[in-house]
């Protein structure tokens, strides 16, 4: 009898410990703001005072620090160790645009033909309640100062890479957007766009039949673009369909200038997802 009582009390203690640890790991939607234990918005570095060597369009406002991002509702904060590695970091709040029943968060980056470097963006935090994202954008290597000049003939290349991860930074899917082109004073003379995408099928991700990638110039050959429309789905983990979509585009022009448009999207999930991108220009 004594043993049975001890056994039962031990088992109850074990179940309580399991329930406690599980409740700590599960997002509590009643709480207004979720602050994970090791990375908080306050622990991120303040924005760099220096100007980024490329222009950005599409954001709602820029912030001096990540801490200023105070949306309503639950905030999912990226816990990936990569978050704190950006140089010259700047913070931007991107407002969701309702397109086809879901919210997209597009950003466009532009560099002049003489500007070269590498830019990186990371989804730091987001709120599904007010449909905003906090994106950190910075550089990973120094780039020479861009001096405006008009080069009439030459070749240029750029690459955009969008990378989707789970909440601990493990990879889920990638989209690559390389673009190389030749140009003269008035047109794009030739180009090579060989976009690619990949996903990890090991935990139930699959490619949607609609995924495709292509490149083309406009009819007057003023611009060239490499684009991908890739959709990946997972119905295994949450018990309902979770969708990742990427519609990123890399652009080039007849003057050699480059730009990139990123608008990664994922549907509501039972576990937060994140993305980052790298643009070589």
């Amino acid at each position, binding site marked *: 009898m*004594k*043993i049975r009582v*001890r*056994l039962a009390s*031990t*088992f109850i203690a*074990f179940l309580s*410990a*399991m329930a406690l*640890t*599980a409740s700590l*790991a*599960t997002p509590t939607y009643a709480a207004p703001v979720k602050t994970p234990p090791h990375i908080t918005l306050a622990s991120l570095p303040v924005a760099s005072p220096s100007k980024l060597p490329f222009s950005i369009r599409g954001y709602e406002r820029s912030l001096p620090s990540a801490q200023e991002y105070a949306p309503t509702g639950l905030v999912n904060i990226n816990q*990936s*160790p*990569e978050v704190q590695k950006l140089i010259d970091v700047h913070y931007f709040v991107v407002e969701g645009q309702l397109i086809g029943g879901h919210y997209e968060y597009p950003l466009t980056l532009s560099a002049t033909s003489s500007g070269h470097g590498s830019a990186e963006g990371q989804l730091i935090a987001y709120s599904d309640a007010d449909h905003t994202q906090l994106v950190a954008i910075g550089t990973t290597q120094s780039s020479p100062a861009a001096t405006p000049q008009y080069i009439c003939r030459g070749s240029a290349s750029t690459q955009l890479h969008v990378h989707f*991860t*789970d*909440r*601990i*930074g*493990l*990879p*889920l899917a990638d989209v690559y957007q390389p673009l190389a082109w030749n140009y003269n004073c008035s047109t794009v003379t030739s180009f090579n766009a060989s976009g690619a995408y*990949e996903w*990890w099928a*090991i*935990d*139930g*991700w699959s490619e949607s039949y609609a995924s495709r990638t292509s490149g083309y110039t406009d009819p007057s050959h003023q611009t060239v673009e490499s684009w991908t429309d890739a959709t990946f789905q*997972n119905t*295994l*983990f*949450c018990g309902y369909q*979770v969708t990742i979509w990427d519609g990123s585009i890399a652009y080039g022009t007849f003057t050699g200038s480059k730009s990139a448009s990123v608008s990664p999207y994922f549907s509501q*999930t*039972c*576990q937060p*997802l994140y993305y980052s991108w790298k643009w070589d220009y």
Partner: protein
Amino acid sequence: MVQRIFEMIVGVCASALGFALLLSLLLSPSIDGRYSYFGQTHDLSWLPAFLAFAAVLAAVAVGVLLHGITSVSRTGRRVRVIFAWVGRLTLWLSTAGLIILVYIAGFSIGLLFIPSALLALIACGLALVPDPLRNVTSNR
């Protein structure tokens, strides 16, 4: 005694299965026959998750062995009781940790570790069964 041996086998299998999976994700090529799952990121962003999985899997093995050793060791009763409880707690906490990791990495590699987590849970259940030493003590 048989229960303890069975518990040790199940717990060690949970750990070994998990480690085999981790090594496979680290070493076996998955993309274009070149990159492994962890190797394709070209940086060490995967390392904290890898170490977390490795730590809980190792702790499952340590816990179950520590608990199992108590039934065959010839040391004093007090030492055996301490070892048994340290082993149990290590096993239970590491199993809880493994279940949490399965959940938070559910979109990437988490679900692959469900067999390991189930085996570890069985070992946890077996660790609840009192050992012969305690039976004898209670009967007195």
